[in-house]
């Protein structure tokens, strides 16, 4: 009886995984297909779609926009996230619970709602859509992730280590850069990668917020799909997968290295 039950669970698990990962595998597989149409059957191995991709101006422009947007989002989100965490964890701030909840809230609110809300807010202020506002949207959206990661780490950094540094003559600022920040580094790195990846992947908010003429990789793919299913999209998908999976893995490896060295 028990054996049968386990078999069923195992089969079900496999099915779920297949359902999740098969489409991704298919995209990757088809991106190397020599066939003119982005679908089965495979007619041979070819890198032609990647070559075409690298010659497609619209895609390259979208790529640059996405990279810039992701990098700026990561930088701003991480800086704000570290500052906010310090304030919330290390100092008594009046109303800190409310502030904390507000900062985390964007995770809980459905993205569409958040997107519309921000858009309406901009309308209300009669601000036109622009790249900085798109960036702001991404920062709001990624900040909670950074905050959660950095706060968790900051809580585990003992206060007396910082106090020891100050007693030895380091000013609060020097203590932060000499002690707190290096110990926080794995979390800062993880937060930045999270922010970059989320921003790089995002489509819902971006569709609402982006000014006319600006495309990110996801919105570009979306636009291309409206005309036809080009095999280039498979190649682009493969590149996206590489970035959004590869980067966090890389970051994880680096964080582990740092941790090993410091033995924290």
């Amino acid at each position, binding site marked *: 009886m028990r054996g049968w039950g386990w078999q069923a669970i195992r089969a079900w698990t496999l099915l779920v995984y297949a359902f999740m990962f098969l489409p991704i595998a298919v995209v990757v597989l088809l991106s190397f297909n020599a066939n003119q149409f982005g679908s089965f059957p495979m007619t041979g191995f070819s890198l032609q779609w990647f070559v075409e991709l690298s010659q497609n101006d619209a895609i390259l422009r979208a790529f640059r926009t996405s990279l810039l947007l992701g990098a700026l989002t990561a930088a701003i989100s991480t800086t704000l996230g570290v500052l906010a965490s310090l304030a919330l964890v290390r100092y008594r701030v009046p109303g800190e619970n409310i502030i904390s909840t507000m900062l985390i809230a964007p995770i809980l609110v459905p993205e569409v709602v958040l997107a519309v809300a921000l858009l309406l807010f901009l309308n209300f202020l009669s601000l036109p859509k622009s790249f900085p506002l798109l960036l702001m949207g991404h920062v709001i959206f990624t900040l909670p992730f950074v905050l959660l990661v950095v706060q968790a780490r900051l809580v585990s950094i*003992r206060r*007396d*280590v910082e*106090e*020891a*540094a*100050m*007693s*030895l*003559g*380091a*000013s*609060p600022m*020097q*203590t932060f850069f*000499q*002690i707190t920040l*290096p*110990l926080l580094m794995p979390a800062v790195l993880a937060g930045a990668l999270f922010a970059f990846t989320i921003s790089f992947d995002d489509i819902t908010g971006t569709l609402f917020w982006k000014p006319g003429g600006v495309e990110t990789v996801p919105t570009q793919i979306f636009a291309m799909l409206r005309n036809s299913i080009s095999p280039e999209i498979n190649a682009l998908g493969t590149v996206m997968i590489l970035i959004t999976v590869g980067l966090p893995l890389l970051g994880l490896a680096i964080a582990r290295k740092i941790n090993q*060295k*410091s*033995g*924290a």
Partner: protein
Amino acid sequence: MSTVALENVVKRFGTFTAVHQTSLEMDDGEFVTLLGPSGCGKTTNLRMIAGLLDPTEGNILINGQRINDVPIHKRNLGIVFQNYALFPHKTVAENVAFGLKYRDVSRAEMEERVRRALDLVQLPDSGAKYPKALSGGQQQRIALARAIVIEPSVLLLDEPLSALDANLREDMRIELKRIQDRIGVTTVFVTHDQSEALAMSDKIVVMSAGHVEQVGTPEEVYNAPGSEFVANFLGASNILDGTCEQADGTAVLIDVPLLGRITVPRAKAPAVRPGAGAKLVLRAEKLVLAGEDARKEDTISIPGVVETVDYQGQAVRYFVRSGETQLQAINMIDERPFAKGQPVSLHFRQRDCAALGAE
């Protein structure tokens, strides 16, 4: 080098008063211990001296200078924390050199001073290691080296030994005292362990619930406790109610119902007044059990029956009933301990007693 003083210091957290009005003076080079049970305000006092907490009222003075408004990083203090607080991402040598970076010290001198500090704590070859690679005791030595290498005006230690296991704690205690003697730095040491306090201190400040109960040398607080709390916190004592019948400059005579008339040296009963109530303090170690009919010169003897025997290795703690009173005695074991229910005689010398004035 330096003196430290607290002047009418009070510390409140909201409505809760952690330290009631306290004044203390610590001489240059003195080893002062703040001793008391958990929550009595020892750490609070230490952190106010360190500059990690602001006193609600009163002044903190170092070398006679009011330093309330000097931030911690300008106070030139060495602090050793209970959990070592080493920088995990820096090597031992970098840890020890940390404070020197903020002082006007050449590279060569820095290396020399780090080397000397590591020698002093007997870990000369550990410079390249990371703290994680060291044992607890070794980490605490490095923390000490890091604190003293800057030649602090005052060394502050908050229960630095309590994270170590019992054997190591004894070794470190001796080591710490040796180093402190050697460099002669004024030291404030916080502990709740009375044997640590007695063994190490020049001066003990016994605290209870935010108040200073008594300040004195280890002998003074041990032999002439100033309050019932002190008598019981530093080892176990029997405290018996009585009346003072006579008192002069050299001795006081106290009548205790169970024991009769006891003569106590005046030095051990400073607060007793003739005609008033008094409490006789009889240390458990000074009350000696003997066979039922034993006679001893020069001692007071009373009969009793052993009620509880608490065997502790080389010593044993007895609870003995004598009349209506239960008395506590801690004796070295000679041959075999007395058994439960055995009738015994209890002996003590009058000059080993101390007395407190009644409240």
